[in-house]
Each structure stands twice: as structure tokens, then as C-alpha cells.
């Protein structure tokens, strides 16, 4: 699969997850906001690797409010972090289902990253950033095998 195709897969997954589960939308590619919350999910199976999501804090709060059907003021930091983890989990599953529709994967539990982590030695790595309500979301796919 070409990098262009991988990029399309990421964009499609972000749209699908945001629209169906968060009643939101990706507004188009852009440069990432600095900082924010970051979470990652490891996957193993026909391919192995990691999906990482970084999201602006304000966007995370907005998406968490939509997801939980609560006002932003009522949310705790823990709830927001858990929603970011669940968002990462769903994006990973959605990306893998589009990337390798017939494959069977095992996903790790999503983990919030205390510090921004980099994907260093993985052979295939693609990253895209999208504008969303009140900030940006950056989705990275790193795999240790070629598609």
C-alpha cells in the first residue's frame, strides 16, 4: 500500500470515528497545535506496530463532552484522558480494518503518554494532522513490517 493510500486510510478512519461516535468531524489537513494529550495502542497480528493519537486539550475536552453527553465543565481530567484512550483504541481498530480487512489483530489496552513519544526505528510510518473543533488531532501509524 502506498503512502498516499495509507494517508487515505487514516483520513477515512478519523472521519468515521469522529462522525459516528463523537458527533464531530475532521475539517481538513493542517499543522498540529503544540502540546495536547497523547495516547497509543500497540497491535500485533499479520502486522505489528503502534497507533498514536495526539489531540489538543480543548478538542479533547469537547470530544469527551460529546462522547459522554455531559457539559465540559462537569468532566474530570480522568474522564477526558479515558475518552482520549478510547478514541485511540477505536481509531486503531478502524485503521486496521481498512488497512488489512481480512487480518486478525490483537490490540493492547490504550495508554496515555506522559511525555510525547517518537517512533524511531519502525519501517513504515505515516502521520497526518487534521483540524477539528477547537484544535487539531494527529494520528500516527508505525508498523515494523511493510504493507
Amino acid at each position: 500500500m502506498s503512502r498516499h493510500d495509507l494517508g487515505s486510510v487514516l483520513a477515512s478512519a478519523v472521519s468515521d470515528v469522529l462522525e459516528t461516535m463523537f458527533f464531530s468531524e475532521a475539517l481538513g489537513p493542517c499543522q498540529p497545535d503544540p502540546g495536547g494529550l497523547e495516547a497509543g495502542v500497540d497491535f500485533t497480528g499479520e502486522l505489528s506496530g503502534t497507533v498514536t493519537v495526539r489531540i489538543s486539550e480543548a478538542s479533547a475536552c469537547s470530544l469527551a463532552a460529546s462522547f459522554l453527553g455531559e457539559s465540559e465543565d462537569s468532566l474530570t481530567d480522568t474522564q477526558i484522558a479515558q475518552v482520549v484512550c478510547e478514541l485511540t483504541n477505536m481509531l486503531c481498530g478502524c485503521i486496521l480494518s481498512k488497512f488489512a480487512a481480512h487480518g486478525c489483530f490483537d490490540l493492547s489496552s490504550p495508554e496515555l503518554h506522559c511525555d510525547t513519544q517518537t517512533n524511531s526505528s519502525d519501517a513504515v510510518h505515516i502521520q497526518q494532522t487534521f483540524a477539528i473543533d477547537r484544535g487539531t488531532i494527529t494520528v500516527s501509524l508505525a508498523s515494523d513490517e511493510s504493507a
Partner: protein
Amino acid sequence: MSLNIMIVDDSPVMRTFLRKVVQLTGLSVGECCEAGDGEAALNALRERWMDLVLTDINMPRMNGEEFVKRVVADETLADIPVIVVSTDSSRDRIDRMIGLGARGYISKPFQPETLRDEIERVLGVQHVQA
């Protein structure tokens, strides 16, 4: 007739989401219980009958596969329908869970209507009232 539903997922926010989506679908819901893993769910089911269980697959202590196997193997619980709600949409996984005894399967992400339709299909439309 109101449905008593159990939601099994190790993510508290996903349990909240599913509870709210179930309520938004217009289904008549009575009691909605939650459990963080398969073992907690089994213990709860042995205390109180549920009309339906929605379960994730990847959970600590007892995952969704083991949970479905135990429900089906227990003659006091085997009639409780279990619907899997998972990020894994692979054909292999779906076939495996149905083969183990799950009555339905929903892949995340999903529209609320998808959840309602699957619940109605599994339970039979006549069991569900808005």
C-alpha cells in the same frame, strides 16, 4: 416490557457511552448494570437475571471470549443473549465469537441505529417497545 441490560467493558467511559446510546435508541430499558471485566459480569449475572449483555472482547482478568464461553456453558445463564461490541471487525473474530455463542456482533465505530437494530434482531422485535 422493559429490558434489563448489562454492559461489560473495562473502559468506564465506553460503559457510559453505551448506556446513553441504549437509552437514546428508544428501547424500553429497565435496569442497566455495568461490569469492568468478564469475571465481574459473571458474578453479577449469577445474582440477577439480565435480558441482554453487551460485551467488549479485550478486557483484563477475563476477556470477552472467555466470558461468552462461560455464559454459554452455564445452564443457568445460557439463555441470556450476548452481543459483542468491539473495535475488531475482522471476519475471523466475528465468526469466532458467534461460534462461541455470541448472538450478535457490533463493530466500533457504529451509529446508534446499528446498536438498536442489532438488539432488536437478537431479541426479536416483539420483545422491544419504544
